[in-house]
């Protein structure tokens, strides 16, 4: 499927009132959006607040998305707009007395995302995924990398690997399942608390 069709099926469902379709889009895009927003603001709490604001605006204005760009591009534009508005507001607002500002920044810096547990968890997830991918059968690793890192469609991967589309589908799925199995011990304690 060409890049401009990415997510379009879920967006159309969401525009028709299917909230679950929108939630799938949120889960898919929220962390990359957080990384984008973190270029504008410093603290984890500000990042999370702006990401939430962006998604609220996106949902409310979903009918205005016409597919002229990808959903991801449109989402990032709105987030950038939201972040810039916030920065402009912060520049113009009256400053608190020095003592209060110090306390405020300490509170913000101890936001959830920066906790030692979360930093460790992020690192463990990244390391586990990397190790698991190294251990995949070569054809499954190749299919997953072509899909995830080069963004190729199944058809493009099939041409590259000289195999049927159905084989690509199975290889990508099996690769994900093997990696997911290795992540299981890390994720099991918090099952049900993510979504």
């Amino acid at each position, binding site marked *: 499927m060409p890049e401009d*069709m990415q997510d379009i099926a879920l967006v159309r469902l969401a525009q028709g009132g299917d909230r679950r379709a929108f939630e799938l889009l949120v889960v898919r895009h929220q962390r990359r959006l957080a990384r984008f927003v973190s270029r504008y603001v410093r603290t984890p709490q500000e990042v999370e607040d702006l990401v939430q604001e962006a998604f609220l605006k996106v949902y409310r204005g979903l009918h205005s998305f016409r597919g002229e760009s990808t959903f991801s591009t449109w989402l990032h534009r709105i987030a950038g707009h939201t972040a810039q508005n916030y920065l402009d507001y912060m520049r113009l607002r009256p400053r608190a007395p020095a003592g209060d500002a110090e306390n405020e920044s300490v509170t913000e810096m101890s936001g959830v995302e920066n906790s030692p547990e979360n930093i460790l968890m992020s690192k463990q997830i990244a390391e586990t995924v990397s190790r698991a991918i190294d251990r995949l059968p070569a054809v499954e690793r190749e299919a997953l990398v072509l899909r995830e890192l080069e963004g190729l469609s199944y058809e493009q991967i099939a041409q590259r690997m000289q195999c049927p589309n159905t084989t690509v589908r199975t290889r990508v799925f099996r690769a994900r399942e093997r990696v997911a199995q290795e992540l299981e011990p890390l994720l099991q304690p918090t099952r049900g608390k993510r979504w």
Partner: protein
Amino acid sequence: MVTTEAISELFDNEIEPNRLLAVVGSVEHDPSMRERWTVFTMISDAMAGVPWPDDGYSLRLFERLRGVEIDPDYNPLKV
């Protein structure tokens, strides 16, 4: 019956249109399908070097989304 392989196809935007509703519907009714979508996203983000913060991230966002409706007159790029 919807399988986790179908979730993988949906994740890659490769699901056939006539199966789309059933697969999205399975996410609504089956927590294991929601978990699969989350784990596939986690793998994708990890491969792209995107950190994965605390597990309540999505839930806090969905809580805020609860009170929001689509507004046909609202343009998010004009506010």
